[in-house]
């Protein structure tokens, strides 16, 4: 196999599964083989480079993002059809029709008794309402809460909520990880607005119908507001956020920062869209959005440099590589720390 690679053209490389694996994942298991092979066959560097470039160009095609309203509209139509069909599916119904009259009466009595029992049970219990759990593992997922609030949970995140939240004076949820919330406006039976509260470690976010992002991971807490207004309360202070503002924890304090909301929701689409975005904004994002500790060792003027364009965030290695090329800086990763410095060559 190794021999035949010597006669490969860029096209041939692009059709080779083993080679593609390496392009898809340059840090993967194949990297040792290919780096070694290239060192032994330096005259193939140009062909490999051309294949790599063509592959990179192919990856830049434009994704068309449909509107959320489109997605919701189609889902609603699908569900209407499905519901109407499952209602008609016959066997259950015909069996009921065949029940003898006596059984019918018995069934009704049982039903009434059951309903009464349930009612009594709920009146007498004052224990906190049952909590339901939403949990994600390896994929970002969207859920609708009973009050019709739309929640998008990042990978490896959890949301607990009261099953009966829709009927409560206050709607309450608990977030562990990262989530984006599109909270529905609601007024209770008394005509009062029904507040929505997000509980996090050491702080709460109080909301009335809005779109915002929260992170609650160990010592990293962040709330980013896209639309509406929210109040962030910790033990000592309370901050009111306007759209385009973010609250982060700095030790025991809450700090407010102005940001571009679109940058902080990239985890939902896997795509970061820069639009004359400065290096400083990117550093803030890496710190408060991605949770890295960033060390910046260049003169402040450098941090005002701007770039535009979109980049995928699915693979962190690739993201750092792209950023390093775009800004012309070197980015070193050490555990959870990023060191940004001048390119050495």
């Amino acid at each position, binding site marked *: 196999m190794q021999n035949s690679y010597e006669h490969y053209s860029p*096209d041939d490389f692009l059709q080779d599964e083993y080679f593609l694996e390496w392009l898809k994942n340059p840090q993967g298991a194949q990297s040792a083989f290919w780096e070694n092979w290239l060192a032994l066959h330096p005259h193939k560097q140009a062909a490999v480079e*051309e294949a790599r470039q063509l592959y990179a160009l*192919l990856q830049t*095609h434009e994704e068309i993002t449909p509107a959320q309203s*489109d997605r919701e509209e189609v889902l609603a139509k699908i569900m209407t059809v499905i519901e109407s069909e499952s209602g008609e599916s016959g066997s259950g119904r015909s069996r009921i029709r065949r029940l003898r009259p006596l059984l019918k009466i018995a069934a009704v009595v049982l039903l009434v008794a059951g309903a009464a029992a349930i009612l009594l049970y709920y009146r007498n219990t004052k224990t906190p309402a049952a909590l339901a759990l939403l949990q994600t593992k390896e994929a970002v997922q969207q859920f609708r809460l009973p009050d019709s609030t739309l929640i998008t949970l990042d990978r490896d995140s959890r949301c607990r909520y009261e099953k009966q939240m829709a009927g409560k004076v206050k709607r309450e949820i608990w977030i562990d990880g990262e989530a984006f919330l599109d909270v529905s406006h609601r007024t209770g039976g008394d005509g009062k607005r029904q507040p929505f509260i997000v509980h996090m470690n050491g702080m709460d976010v109080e909301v009335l119908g809005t779109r915002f992002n929260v992170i609650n991971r160990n010592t990293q807490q962040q709330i980013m507001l896209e639309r509406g207004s929210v109040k962030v309360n910790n033990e000592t202070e309370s901050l009111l956020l306007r759209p385009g503002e973010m609250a982060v924890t700095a030790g025991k304090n809450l700090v407010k920062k102005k940001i571009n909301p679109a940058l902080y929701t990239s985890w939902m689409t896997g795509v970061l869209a820069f639009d004359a975005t400065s290096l400083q904004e990117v550093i803030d994002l890496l710190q408060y959005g991605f949770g890295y500790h960033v060390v910046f060792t260049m003169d402040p003027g450098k941090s005002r440099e701007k770039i535009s364009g*979109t980049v995928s965030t699915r693979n962190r290695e690739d993201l750092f590589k792209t950023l390093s090329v775009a800004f012309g800086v070197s980015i070193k990763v050490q555990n959870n720390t990023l060191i940004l410095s001048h390119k050495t060559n």
Partner: protein
Amino acid sequence: MRHTWLLSDKEDKKAFTCLYEQYFNQLFNYAVRFCADREQVKEYIQEMFIKLWRNRHSLNKAANIEHYLIGALRNIILKKQSYKTRFVFEELEEESYDFEMAYPAEHRIIKTEQQKLLHNQFKKAFSKLTPRQKEIIYLRYLKGMNYEELAAIMNITVKAAYKLIARSLETLRENLQGFPVNKFFVGLLLLTLIGTL
């Protein structure tokens, strides 16, 4: 590994909704390459999901759900599109469907003029491919389908899939010739060499 195929839990509407939410954007992105009319695309997707629900008891486990859904959607689109084509032309030709892909240079991270030129050239070269060539490149290099999957979806033999990919890449690179691409690569190579010294 990546997903749980909802049909293991056959009655679950919630799982079905999750599946929908997870793949709607990708499916939309694919379908819109056949048909620029977004309302029409929405109808295709709707039809595909309703069919999926109706057939949920007779489906086998798919190795890759996204690829499975793309295949199902493609069948629906081509049935409708080719019907239209047949209606107009009476005879169905092999290349009778359209597959459009756009590579907009201006929205990407492009720092140097040289890169911009390369990108524009690439756009032009790509636009010269036939619809089938565009589609197979899209499915292979952006969706990561293997040759068996390509063959099944595009309704050709595996051998033909290999051929079509090879031919597409060849055409793509031919169209990129006559442009200082190679000079650019040599330049890049020199830079990397200098960098390593």
